[in-house]
Structures are given as C-alpha cells and as structure tokens.
C-alpha cells in the first residue's frame, strides 16, 4: 500500500464515518432520554434511501401507506382512551397529525407531477418518514415506557424485524442507488473528491452543529437534556416524558432518514442494509459508553476508517474487523467499572 491509496481509503472512511457519527449521536440521544436501545435506527436509513429512489422513479412509495396506517391506528388508540375517560385535551391537534397530515401528504404526492428537483424529493422523503418516528414511539414504546431496559430492547428488536419485512414488501429485494446531488469533482493533489462526498461531510457537520445549538440554546433542547439526567425531575418541572420521547424520536428519525438520503448515491442500499449500518453506529456509540456524544462521533470516524482499510486488505472479513473493534472497548469499560446496580 502506498500513501495515495491510504489517503483514498481515509477519505472514503471519513465519508462513511460521518454518517455513522450522525447515527451514533442519535443512538446516544435516544438511549439517554428514553432508555431505548434503538435498533431500528438503521431501518430509517434504508427507508430514507429507498423511498427517495422510488420517488425518483415516479412511484408512490409504500412507506406513505405505512404512515397512513400508523396514523389511523394511533388516532384509534387515542380515541378509545378518550372514550374511556382519558384525557381529551389536544385530541383535535393529535388527530390533525395522525390522520389529516398523512392523508394530505398522500393527496399532495398524487397531485404533484412525477419529476421534481432533488431537493423537493428529499423534502418529500423526510415529510413521509420523519413522522414515523413519533408515531412509532406512541404505538410501540409509550405503553411500555416504564419497563426495564431489557423489555424496551426486545421491543426495539421486534420493530426492527417487522420493518425489515415491510421494507422487503415496499421496496422489493432489488437494491437501489440514487443519482448524486452534484456531479462536481475536486482534485487535491492525488485525491479526487466527489461532490457527493462533500455533501455528506458538510451536511453531517452542519447537522452536528445544529444539534449542538439545539441542545445548548433552545428550551426544548435543554428540557431533553434535563430528561436524560433525571426523568422524574424533568416531569416535576412540567416536561412530559411522553413528549420528550416523541421529540427524541422525531430527531432520531430525521437523522436516520437524512443519512439514508446522503449515502444513497454512494452505495447500493437494499431493504435490509440498514441493520448493519445502524449497528456500526452502535459500535461507535458503545465506544462513547452510550453516553458521550463527542467520543461517539470520534469513534464513528474510527469505525469508518477501519472499515475502509479492512475492505481493502481483507474485504471478506471487513464486518468481522469492525464488530471485533468493540471487544477492546468492552475490556476497557469492564476494567474501569465495579458498580453493582439494580436494573431500572
């Protein structure tokens, strides 16, 4: 291997690492606020890429009908609860989100001409998929929100399994690769940097800065941080854990879908590709102890670079290398921790 190849591999690694960093940040966030180990994070990536691809082919993606179905189901549950004497406040607004919004979106998709600019397609993809996040929280996690980490984890795995099956149903077994956002090429010495790589890195960096501003400056961001530190304390201060959960899932879905849109032009995405991508985000999140955002992001870059180098040296074993990376991390963590703790 010479320096040029090493540089190219590093460049590739940083591009994918930037996406893993976004996912790792989302995973740490979801775990901190809701104690959910969010295995389906990767499915949002695959759904994002494949929904985008279907829109580009001028088809109406099946994920739209998933949104409609989940919305109607959530509305039914809320309605039943209200009829049994539950809270009626906000019922109208929630009906708006759960029923009216998906239907309006469906009408819009059918009314719109099939060919659109890439920005509009990306916006539509986000509009279809991001609301799945809070709906998923409402339907699957909220009823067991007080359960143990283990119960929440099994729920996550169950959702992951269902989403992969639905992905196959919606998108078929064929993979898709979308056209790049820009065809620009930049040459820096021996390196050729594609416009898409710039897009990925810049968008990831912008999103990380945006998240930092959100958590550091905005009231909701601070409230989420407070919930992560002390759920009951935040509740006593009037910040509902249900709302915190939904907001967190909005962010996680947004990050996942955006990552999917960003990487779709770089690699072929299949209905079940998301799992491995999400797990690599997890490896990074574990490096950060499921608690530290900067270490998780740095770990993600490490994962990306390790992946690109090992695919050059021994491509058959690249997954083995990446997942074995967590072993030294776990050794280190288990040597530094002695605490006996009760399951929550």
């Amino acid at each position, binding site marked *: 291997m010479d320096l040029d190849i090493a540089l190219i591999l590093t460049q590739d690694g940083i591009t994918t690492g930037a996406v893993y960093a976004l996912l790792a940040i989302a995973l740490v966030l979801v775990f901190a606020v809701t104690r959910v180990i969010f295995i389906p994070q990767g499915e949002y990536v695959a759904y994002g890429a494949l929904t985008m691809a279907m829109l580009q082919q001028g088809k109406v993606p099946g994920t739209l009908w998933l949104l409609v179905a989940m919305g109607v189901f959530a509305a039914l549950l809320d309605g039943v609860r209200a009829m049994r004497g539950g809270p009626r406040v906000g019922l109208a607004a929630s009906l708006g989100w759960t029923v009216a919004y998906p239907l309006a979106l469906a009408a819009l998709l059918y009314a719109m001409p099939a060919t659109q600019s890439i920005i509009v397609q990306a916006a539509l993809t986000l509009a279809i998929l991001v609301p799945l996040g809070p709906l998923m929280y409402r339907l699957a996690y909220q009823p067991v929100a007080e359960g143990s980490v*283990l119960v929440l*984890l099994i729920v996550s795995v169950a959702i992951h399994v269902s989403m992969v099956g639905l992905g196959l149903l919606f998108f078929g077994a064929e993979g898709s690769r979308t056209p790049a956002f820009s065809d620009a090429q930049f040459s820096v010495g021996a390196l050729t940097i594609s416009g898409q790589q710039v897009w990925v890195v810049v968008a990831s960096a912008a999103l990380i800065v945006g998240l930092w501003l959100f958590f550091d400056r905005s009231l909701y961001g601070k409230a989420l941080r407070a919930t992560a530190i002390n759920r009951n304390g935040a509740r006593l201060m009037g910040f509902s854990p249900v709302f915190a959960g939904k907001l967190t899932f909005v962010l996680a879905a947004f990050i996942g879908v955006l990552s999917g849109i960003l990487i779709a032009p770089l690699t072929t995405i299949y209905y079940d590709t998301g799992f491995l991508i999400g797990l690599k985000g997890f490896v990074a999140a574990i490096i950060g102890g499921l608690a530290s955002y900067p270490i998780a992001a740095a770990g993600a870059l490490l994962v990306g670079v390790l992946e690109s180098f090992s695919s050059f040296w021994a491509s058959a074993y690249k997954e*083995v290398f990446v*997942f074995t990376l967590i072993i030294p991390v776990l050794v280190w963590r288990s040597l530094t921790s002695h605490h006996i703790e*009760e399951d929550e």
Partner: protein
Amino acid sequence: MNAPNRQAAVLPAVGGARSGAASLLSSRNILIAFVAVLAIAPVLLPEFYITLLNYIGLAAMVALGLVLLTGVGGLTSFGQAAFVGVGAYTTAVLTTSQALPAWLVWAASPWPALLVGLLITATVALILGSLTLRLSGHYLPLGTIAWGISLYFMFGTMETLGGHSGLSGIPPINLFGWVLDEGREIFYLIWAFLLVAALTTENLLDSREGRAIRALKGGMVMAEAMGVDTSRSRMVIFVIAAMHAAAAGWLYAHLQRFVNPSPFGVHVGIEYLFMAVVGGAGQVWGAIAGAGVITILKQWLQDWLPKVFGASGNFETIIFGLMMVVILQRARDGLWPLLAKLVPARGTTRVIDATAEPLPRKAMPAAGEVILEAKNVTRRFGGLVANNDMNLHVEAGEILALIGPNGAGKSTMFNQLSGVDTPTSGEVLFRGKSIAGHGSREIAHLGMSRSFQHVRLLPKMSVLENVAIGAHLRGTKSVLPSAWRLDRAEEARILREAAFQIERVGLADFMHAEAGSLALGQQRILEIARALASDPCLLLLDEPAAGLRLKEKQALGELMKKLRGEGMAILLVEHDMDFVMGLVDRVVVMEFGQKIAEGLPDEVQKNPRVLEAYLGGVE
C-alpha cells in the same frame, strides 16, 4: 444453649401434596403423560409432523437457555444462533475432515465432537461473559449481536468451513450400536436431550444456586448484601444457555447431515428470543410452548403470506415483530401462564423437614466485645459534609440506636457502617478489621447482616425462599449438584433454618405466601428474618419499626431483646422514639452530620442540646 431442640419444637408441620382428585393432575403425572405421548408419536404420525416436532425440539432447547438467561436472569443474548452454529460446525468439521491433526483424531466421531463443541462454546461464553457481564445489562445483548454477526461472516468466508455452500456428508449419530439416520429415530434423542435439559434447569432453579440466579432480576443489591456473587450467577446462566444452544447445534448437524451458515445468523438468534418471550420468559416449560408456536406459525405464514402479498420473501417477520410488541405490551409473561390456567396442575407445597440437621453456627462473640467501631468518620459529597468526624461503637450483647432529625446524616452513616459507601476519611472497624472499600459481599462473609430502609425483597418468591437467600453463605452446593439433585440434604437444612427464623419473627402463617403479598410492616420483619438466617453477630437495621402496628412493634422489641440476650450486637436507625427509648441500651444522637449526644436513653432524653435540636423541634 440448646438451639437445635428449640428449633425442632417450634417448627410447623407444614407440607405435603394435597390429596384427593386434584392429585391426578399433579405436575408429575402431566409430565409422565407428556413423555408417553412423545414416545408413541413417531409410530403414529406421518413424516412431515415428525420433522416439525424435531425442529420444535431443537428450537426449544435453545429457547430454554434463553428462558433461563432472559426470563429468570434479566439478561439477554442475540447470539444464541451463533452458539448453535459452534456446536453444529464443530461436529461437522470433526466428523467429515479427512486431514485432522493427530492429536485430534480421537474426536472424529459424533459423541466426542459433542464434547469438543461444548468445551469451545463454554470457553467463548466465558470470554464474552467476562467482557460484558460486569457492565450494565444492555452491554451483553449488544456484545452478542456483534459476536453473532462476526461468527456468521466467519462461517461464510472460511474455506475450511465450506464457505457459503457449507459442509455435507456428516455421519448419523450412533447410540450404542443404533444408527440414528432417520428423523423418526433421532426424534427420541432430541426430545430426550430437551427433557433432561428442562428438568435439570427446573432443579437448578429450585436450589441455593437457583435462588441466587432468581435474585438477579431486581434483587442484585440485596443478593450481594447476602453474600451472593451476582457476577458469577450471571456468568453461570450465560454459559448454561450457550451450552444448551451448542448441544442443539450438534443434534441439528446430525439430523440435517449438512450445515451451511444461514441458520446461525443474528436474525435466527432473534427468532429464538421471540420463542422464549412468546412461551413466557421465566417459564421452563414455556420454552417448548414458545418454540412450538413460532415454528408452526412460521411454517404456516411462509405458505400463506407470499400468496397474500403476491411476492416471495420472508414476510412472516412482519407478523412476528408486531406479535412481540403486542405481547410485551399486553401479556409480558407470555403464553405459558395462560396455558397453565387451562390445566390446573397442583403445585406441591414445599416440605420442610423438621428433622434435618441444623446448619452449623458461628460462635457468638463474648458479651462486651467491641464489634463495630467508627473512628473519625467523615463523608463529604462535594462541598456538603454529610458525616463530620463521627465516632461510635457497638458491643456484643447491646442494642445501640442512631437517631436524629431528618437530614441529620443517619442514612449516610448507615452506608459507611454497612460498607455500601466509603468514608472520605476515618475508618470503620468490624471486629478489629477495617471494612472501608470492601464490597458488601465480603462484609456479609465477616458476619454482618442488614435490613434495608426501602424493603428489598423478591416479591414473586415465597417468604420461605426469600429468607433462605439469607442463608446463602451457609451452604456450599454449587451448580451441578443442584441440577442433579445432589444438594437435597443441604437444601433441607437451609430451608429448615429459614423456617426457624420465620417462625422466630412471627411470620409462620405466611411461610409459603408470596413475599410481595405481605403488608409493608411484615415485609420489614421478613428482612430481619432473612438477615438472621445468615447467622450474623451484628445486625444493622434501618428503620425496622416503620409501618408496624403497636402489637407488631412490641413483638419486634421482644425479639430484639432475645437476640441481645444471645449475644448479638444490634445497631438500629430509628425514628420512633417510644420504640427506641424502651428498648435500647445506648443512644447516639446526630444533627447536621455530627454527633451531639451519646448515652443512656434517659440521659439523652434530658440532654438540653438533644431537646432543642431534635425533640424540641418535633413538639
């Protein structure tokens, strides 16, 4: 003193299965009927169903390990399919390879290959476990996902393992000359393995070691304080679960006579977990129910769903995932409790053998010996000084009360004394030895036992079993003797001791009730019985009288006087002044983290500083 005679006199004559019509449906008879049905099944059923039953049996073995791990122990693993793969590939390589190294030739047939597979599995599980089990519960599943994926890719890429096309030509198992080369024949071996695994698991759970395992879910802090090594218990169930899976893999390889990587991926591992959840995580027999439901449902959905959707693919995962979410939301205990209701099998009440030899007791220290001593203990939390230069001591044969208004630092002091927390400076001596920095397990070994301010019980276990956890350190029988019922003599002695302590604290009427069904005051008393079962020389009680009625308080007072008479040292933290003043020998009063008075109850009550700081504030 003549404790043995007294114990025998007070023991209740409880126990024995109920007689009458219901005994026909005892769990033993149901099991016999089940085995009889299994025995004739291959004769009556067509090939298709035998194959299905074989796969159900194999899956149930894996699910059984997960029942132990997830349902009982509160841990989980997504890597069980990979362990199945280790068992299957080990035997496949050993029995088909033409070029085994000389030192391995002995293992080139199925039975020795089983042994090798189990050894490899146990080693891998020990390594994985030692990496993840000391961390929070969610690191094990994440670690096993990574392990499962890595191993799956290894199976698929290594040339010696046949790559994605796999290994074929695996010979059938030879059982004392009987060659099991048909589904109908290996059927018996599969179900025999499963039944043995299920029965030994049931035995294990009903033992000293089993109580330690059952305490993992929601009782780790308590169990450690009773001397249970919870990391070891977690490791035990993880290794057992992995070995069940490996044995299933060995059977699978010799049933199929061919292996390839696809049945050992993470998604199959997830399916095994679903079986355990559907059947009822925590129910040994639920594993068979869960494996049956999922296997049959999968068969049916794979036929039916592609027709509905007009496309081919594994769409059954959609249904399984949704089913799992609904089960976890609506019926977290799975299907087994529902099935068990249909057949009201009579459980047998635990027999307490009043003639069992009492457990050995340690000699009590001589009256007046200083048992516990705190010297200049200071504990700071950042800028807050919770305990400042505290000195106190407790002697054998006396009751010392630590009192003080809310926020005086009593609980912090209690934590320093019980070894839960370490003082910033100063030291705590227990029988002359410093205990600062030692875990609660070691301190339990030394002969200190405690109750908790917020009651820590295992609510689903009986009062008897909860108290028996207290006697954990007085037994020695470990996993294998428990699984094979070689521990019964010791178990009888432990249960007898537990029953004696329950009787002693006045809870005999609730001996077999679920601990969670007791009133709060009674639960506090139960904690005292549990502490006593460890044969301590020092008892630390954190507000034992809270929530008790007058009569119960009087009985508790009598009990403590009796224990004092036997030479025990007792330290209690208490709020109830009437209770304290009539009972204890000396009082230490704290305020703002400092000792403001110490002496006889009468002196302390007249002390103007105490009146002002404590009693005066209340009046």
